[in-house]
């Protein structure tokens, strides 16, 4: 069968179940394409030989009742994978080989999927362009020298470029939804507590969530169904009734009330984004839903709040990298000197910057002025959503304030880089689920995304809305294969 890599996850699963394709054929096809796609720099670690062995083993005794039977999959290099190097995009973990598996990836392998490699990301998931990775930039399959977004940039590039049928990323302030938007793919950030954080390299523990990145909404729903489980190993994992998201998926959203928040019409937002948003409003109306103007008054305070809360938690989480128990160690004259040199040489500039911000806002004399203040504003931001959800079932916004930008365009100005996450950050602060779906192209032909934000634990509803909109939008990603010689 030709064009295996062009098939969606759902098609591949069906074809394997119908014995029209073997796991070996599918795995080989994605490995071959990955081999030809080195220029994208989507992988940090390839695990091709071992993947082919596993595929052959699967084919000898295929269990076709599984949800992901023999499906090859590359994952973001922030998930600990037993006996496979896990770097978090950092020099400091360059040689780290976990002795245990993250719960989310464990769930995926249990359903029959096969690891083919670990995907590039911003260092410790801190970045919006994948340019902070120790392992170099990732190219966007849409166009040469275009960032794929971040921090799950390798994941987005690998799905859009058809190097993997589907993948998982992590999202602390937009790291799944923004790269999905930049690459014309679908990305879901689940409700906080939906997917276990056990075995994910920690960035900001009160915000981090794992989620699927896919070619379409149905694939996304299927993977969400696999990765979302209650896990006693994560103290913030929540025991709630999870849906069979892909089976229960419906495009019937008649009578749903969709909120349109006026505060997301930010200063300087390009007309193309506003037009896209208006088109989105028309699409949901065409599907029989009703739109209602709402207000989320504290929206403009979300980014400043995030840039206190996230670095504060990061500075504390990253204290563990001291050159003693694992990872890179620099030579020092004494213990303290060794710590300081290890962290200075082992962390990149953005990570050091954020550790410094976090240390400062938590330090004696500044804690109340910054950290406590931010936690209070975070409460106001969450209250905004609680108030809105008394009137609406979901909220529709643009995913990002612009399309993908050029590599190097924003690296010298941290604040302008941070502004990329203006529409995604509030969702993390409030712990809500949000999904980005491709909804159109700008004048340069680059994809643009729309975001649907749901109530806590209401993933099924936003997946349904996304599914209904996807049918109306009929988006076609423009991938020219420019990187394949």
């Amino acid at each position: 069968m030709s064009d295996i890599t062009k098939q969606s996850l759902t098609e591949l699963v069906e074809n394997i179940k119908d014995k029209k394709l073997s796991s070996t054929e599918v795995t080989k096809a994605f490995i071959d394409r990955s081999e030809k796609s080195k220029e994208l720099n989507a992988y940090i670690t390839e695990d091709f030989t071992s993947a082919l062995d596993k595929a052959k083993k699967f084919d000898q005794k295929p269990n076709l009742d599984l949800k992901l039977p023999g499906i090859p999959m590359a994952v973001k290099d922030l998930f600990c994978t037993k006996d496979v190097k896990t770097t978090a995009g950092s020099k400091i973990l360059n040689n780290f080989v976990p002795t245990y598996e993250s719960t989310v990836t464990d769930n995926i392998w249990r359903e029959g999927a096969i690891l083919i490699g670990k995907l590039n990301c911003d260092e410790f998931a801190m970045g919006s362009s994948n340019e902070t990775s120790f392992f170099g930039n990732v190219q966007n399959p849409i166009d040469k020298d275009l960032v794929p977004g971040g921090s799950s940039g390798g994941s987005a590039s690998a799905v859009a470029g058809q190097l993997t049928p589907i993948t998982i990323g992590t999202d602390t302030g937009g790291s799944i939804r923004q790269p999905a938007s930049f690459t014309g793919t679908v990305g879901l950030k689940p409700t906080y507590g939906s997917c276990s954080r056990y075995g994910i390299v920690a960035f900001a523990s009160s915000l981090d969530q794992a989620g699927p990145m896919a070619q379409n909404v149905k694939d996304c729903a299927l993977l969400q169904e696999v990765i979302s489980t209650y896990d006693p190993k994560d103290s913030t994992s929540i025991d709630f009734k999870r849906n069979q998201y892909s089976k229960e998926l419906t495009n019937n959203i008649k009578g749903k009330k969709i909120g349109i928040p006026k505060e997301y019409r930010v200063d300087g937002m390009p007309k193309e984004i506003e037009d896209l948003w208006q088109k989105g409003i028309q699409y949901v109306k065409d599907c029989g839903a009703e739109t209602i103007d709402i207000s989320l008054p504290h929206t403009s305070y979300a980014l400043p709040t995030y840039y206190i809360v996230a670095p504060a938690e990061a500075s504390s989480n990253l204290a563990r990298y001291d050159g003693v128990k694992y990872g890179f160690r620099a030579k020092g004259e004494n213990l303290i000197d060794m710590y300081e040199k290890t962290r200075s040489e082992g962390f990149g500039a953005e990570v050091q910057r954020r550790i410094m911000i976090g240390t400062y806002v938590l330090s004696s004399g500044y804690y109340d002025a910054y950290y406590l203040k931010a936690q209070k504003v975070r409460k106001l931001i969450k209250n905004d959503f609680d108030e809105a959800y008394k009137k609406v079932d979901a909220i529709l916004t643009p995913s990002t304030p612009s399309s993908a930008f050029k590599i190097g365009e924003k690296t010298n100005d941290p604040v302008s880089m941070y502004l990329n996450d203006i529409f995604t950050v509030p969702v993390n602060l409030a712990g809500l689920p949000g999904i980005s779906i491709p909804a159109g192209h700008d004048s340069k032909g680059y994809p643009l995304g729309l975001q649907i934000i749901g109530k806590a634990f209401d993933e099924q509803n936003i997946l349904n809305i996304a599914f209904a909109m996807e049918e109306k939008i009929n988006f076609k990603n423009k991938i020219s294969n420019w990187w394949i010689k």
Partner: protein
Amino acid sequence: MSIDLKTIKHISKLSRISVDEKKAKKLAGDLNSIFDFIEKLNELKTDNVEPLTSVAETTLKLRPDEVKSKNIREQIIKNSPQDNEDYFVVPKVIE
């Protein structure tokens, strides 16, 4: 507000990241522009607002205090940059 070089040196000490003069100057510039942006929060009055520490509205579950991972010494030590069989080795701390 303004973060001076002295403050940068202090934070660098607290966070155990060594910085030279050049790096300190760059960091001071970056942090000042970031904090200018953060200062926006002062527009809001928050005296009577409860801080939000976790969005997961759940009380932590209790479990029996049992050992579940036994005999994993090798696994724990496996990734250490320097070890001596059962111990992590660090530069000498006692003269």
